[in-house]
């Protein structure tokens, strides 16, 4: 078993447990923004897509990489945008006029 795999597994297990503890604390009020936010964070895949597309290993890998860049970056932009819009709507009774 490659050493990289073991170190990745270490990181994965720690991150998954941390994730579970963090997400459990998110108020059910915000579960929809939670999903769009994690979606935007997950779009960090774009950094791998940029490398694949920029490496020019083969013409196929470049093309697939470019599509992946567009697909994941649209998630990043769209995900943050909609999360922001949703959260800005959550107000308490006191903070509002009328």
């Amino acid at each position, binding site marked *: 078993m490659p050493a990289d795999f073991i170190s990745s597994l270490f990181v994965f297990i720690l991150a998954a447990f941390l994730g579970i503890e*963090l997400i459990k604390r998110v108020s059910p009020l915000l579960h929809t923004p939670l999903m769009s*936010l994690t*979606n935007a964070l997950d779009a960090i895949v774009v950094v791998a897509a940029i490398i694949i597309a920029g490496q020019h290993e083969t013409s196929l890998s470049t093309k697939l990489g470019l599509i*992946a860049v567009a697909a994941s970056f649209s998630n990043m932009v769209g995900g943050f945008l909609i999360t922001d819009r949703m*959260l800005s709507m959550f107000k308490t009774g006191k903070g509002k006029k009328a």
Partner: protein
Amino acid sequence: MTPDQVLMLIDFTYIAAVVGFILSLKWLSSPVTAMRGVLIGEIASGIAVLATLFDARVTEHKWIIIALIIGAGVGVPLGLVKMTAVPQRTALSHAFGALSAALIGIAEYYVAAPNVPRFEMAEIGLEVVIGSLTVTGSLIAAGKLQELKWIPQRPIVYKGQNYVSLAVLASAIILIIALVFRPDLTFLFPIMVIVALIFGIMLVTPIGGADMPTVISLLNSYAGFSAALLGFVLQSKVLVVAGALDGASGFILSVIMCKAMNRSFTNVLFGAFGQVQVAAAGAKEERVVKSASPEDAASILASANKVVIVPGYGMAVAQAQHKVRELYDVLTKKGIDVRFGIHPVAGRMPGHMNVLLAEADIPYDKLMEMDVINGDLPQTDVALIIGANDVTNPAARTDQGSPIYGMPIIDVDKARTVMVIKRSMAAGFAGIDNPLYYLNQTLMLFGDAKKFVTEIVQSLSGSGGH
């Protein structure tokens, strides 16, 4: 800077990004700090993307910039959709995320093929299969939520379906194993991808509308785990962490949704809800219901001290949330305590109802979780149900024969008066009769939700204009 130093610097931005992601989720715990959470997530992602453009392996930037612009061009309109369309937007973004992860895995494979080391082949195979099935599964889910005509809304089921689906999944796994041991058989790889794509379709097609919140959450978790697996393939820790966080989030939401419907994972995935209902709806008897006019409803509300409104997705379909807000305002002005009881599966994705009500400017501190509001319902004068049905059905507590028996519900039947705004006596999505409607303290308010609430508001502000 030497190329090595640049690489190290890029790695440091990735570590900073991971810290940002964790803080981002931490601050999402409360609406007060949530905006800060989004901001740090944006900064973290932005820095990581920017730094990657300076990676020495990236030899040409022109097309990457163009792809980024196209991505932003697609992302902005998807970030500006209406709040009722957020579930299908979310499903679509799971498809995009999984597509991206699958394509990178496919590209990695063809760069190395046919000399792919066994271990890496297993990782790539698993990653591409999960990514691909998430792409088609999410597209079908998005289509169902968007109510596209050519995608069936009701679950499609046939005899032996589960065996066929499992056989398709098994063949995808067998193809991975074959590729691990015979990397020279490169023609198997595209077959594996196609089989996974087909399995994604088969996975979601039999699942009906009421289970959509669970399905979206599950697909969320698959999209996350496919990104994490890609991190394993590329030895990229930032992908492993982001994927694990996203996967964990989807997983927890799926568990919450399953609990809220008293279903198990396997039950959602392998037992279409549609089958049980037909039999249950058959045993219906004629019983009397009491109905009331908007004026009657208004006077009952005006004399109440505590009112709980239980909204369901029907309220959003009727576009009634802004009228409900007016009702909330006029009652609050009279000194009546008005709160909302939100069932976890109200709406079409986790938390959807809260967003719809927040959009209508209803203060979030009046939106109560099911457990909280259930403690208060026995002291509540009026429970007003708008567009919700199954989540208020007392049969879930009492009738062991009911398909929804055991599902946690909002105990509206414990309120002194129950009013239900409903178009007709037709059964709800699950096709189950609701004994709530025949109770002594229940008044049926027949009509369109938006029109009926408008009339109640008019009546309240007309007569009680003090």
